[in-house]
């Protein structure tokens, strides 16, 4: 059983974002980056499946796959330190600023050559938030896909997989499909582990295979973006929010006075 987990590195959720001078993207130089949070759940799910298979006398390999500049090695190493077996780093200036489809085309070619039984992606990324990669990978690689997975179970000697999908308003539904398959993992289905010191040490010995445009037989034309961000800006507030100024104590007092006037409590 070979499980590929796609991991993206994104600005940390606590990062205070500023817009660059040309207004085309954020100032991305001095901000902290993290593993995209939904992807951490995908990594954990893959590791748990592997552990279960090993416990049953089987085996599995978990491979982290990440597309991005050099800095994403940090995200890759985190996955390796947690227990993934090896990693693929897709890295080439030609892959900067690709749209969802083009990014997935590059990843599909790499993953297709590598071979796989399952592909896990996080539900969506914190930065662009396309929420499409896992589904596009499934289509490009000719395998079934399911999204918003709250549980993943292997059946029939790993020939099929059952996925508990979250629907809206508290509803769920199980889907069964043959492997190989691509599954987008919902946050909260497990408790992602922390890397141990031993894990971090072990990770140093694990392979990170680099892939560049030259290694692929993908034409550059196919990567031309079909959608481009022209301009970014802070949203205009649709509702007039009264911001209460002052120290914590002053603001608290003013807020309580207002709420009392409004008979809000």
């Amino acid at each position, binding site marked *: 059983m070979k499980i590929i987990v796609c991991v993206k590195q994104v600005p940390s959720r606590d990062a205070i974002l500023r817009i660059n001078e040309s207004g085309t993207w954020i100032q991305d130089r001095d901000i902290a980056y993290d593993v995209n949070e939904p992807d951490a759940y995908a990594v954990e799910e893959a590791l748990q499946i592997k552990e279960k298979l090993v416990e049953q006398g089987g085996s599995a390999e978990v491979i982290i796959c990440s597309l991005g500049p050099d800095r994403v090695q940090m995200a890759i190493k985190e996955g390796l330190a947690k227990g993934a077996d090896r990693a693929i780093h897709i890295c080439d200036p030609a892959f900067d600023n690709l749209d969802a489809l083009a990014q997935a085309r590059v990843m599909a070619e790499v993953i297709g050559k590598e071979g796989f039984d399952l592909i896990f992606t996080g539900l969506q990324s914190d930065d662009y*938030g396309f929420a499409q990669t896992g589904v*596009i990978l499934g289509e490009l690689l000719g395998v079934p896909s*399911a999204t*918003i997975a709250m549980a993943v179970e292997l059946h029939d000697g790993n020939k099929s997989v059952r996925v508990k999908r979250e629907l*809206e308003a508290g509803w769920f539904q199980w889907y069964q499909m043959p492997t190989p398959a691509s599954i987008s993992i919902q946050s909260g289905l497990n408790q992602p582990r922390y890397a141990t010191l031993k894990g971090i040490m072990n990770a140093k010995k694990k392979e990170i295979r680099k892939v560049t445009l030259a290694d692929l037989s993908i034409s550059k034309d196919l990567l031309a973006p079909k*959608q481009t*961000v022209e301009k970014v800006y802070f949203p205009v507030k649709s509702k007039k929010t009264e911001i209460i100024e002052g120290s914590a104590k002053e603001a*608290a007092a003013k807020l309580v006075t207002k709420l009392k006037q409004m008979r809000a409590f």
Partner: protein
Amino acid sequence: MSGILVFAEQREGKLNRVTYEAVVAGQRLAAGLGLPLSVVLLGSGVDSIAQELATKKADAVYLVNNQHLERYTPDGFSLAMRQVIEQLQPQYVLLAHTYLVRDFAPKLATSLGKALVADCVGYKLEGKVLTLVRQIFQGKINADVSIHDSAPILVSFQAGAFRGDDAEAGSAEVKNLSVQLSADQIRLQPQELFREAKQSVDLTQSKIIVSVGRGIKEKDNIAIVEKLAAALDADIGASRPICDSGWLPMERQIGSSGQTVAPKLYLAVGISGAIQHVVGMKNASTIVAINKDANAPIFDIADLGVVGDLFEVVPALVDEIEKAKAEG
């Protein structure tokens, strides 16, 4: 037709009301671009839903009845929509960005070799040039997105981007459209829908809710917010990450995957205001937000806001509430 095609969503024979938001987007875009508007409904035995959709202003409602579409599968819906698009040749395909659409629309777009501009919150039309507005970085920043692709362009809109009630009434003609599907094309076997064990906490009836988000940092800090809730005689709610981390039980979750609430007073503490949370609480009468990031999207919907450190503001707030209560 070379016009605008809106995807109508039903599941288990029930129309998803968010469809009307996509219809509104379609009606406005059709008027702006001078294009005809159609709606397409996929399913099996869903004629009455097609009739319901036909009470809105559109040129046609296309009804695709097929036994393989009775239960939703991404394979069935993607293959069927592809055939619909090939027959109708729309310039734009509009969808509501629901869990169902997220599951099949990227697949559909890819099978057509097209872009899906997903989860848009609005659009701008300059002449005939369409620019879409998306939220990035979890709603903290908006992006204007241009499209460089030939028809059809697929666009999904976030819930709440348009008001479904704004759909113009009319009478559209219901037309049948057939697609060819076979059982072996559908690789996924769906099972019955179900809910988890009945939730014991019903926040929909709460008058005051104190809701806590990621800003609380650690499980042990939840106590700070519990004190505030106690002072206000309020119920405790939470955004998804808090329940994901197991800091509060799942039944406290407010938002698209949790409960939808409308209390008199909603205090959002350390909640950034990602759309998944906002859809569950935006109808509260008064929304108060406490957050250290002045650009947090929660301030977009709050009536009253305090930009500051919740670890200072919340205890101060508890003191002031106790004082106010003592004064009567």
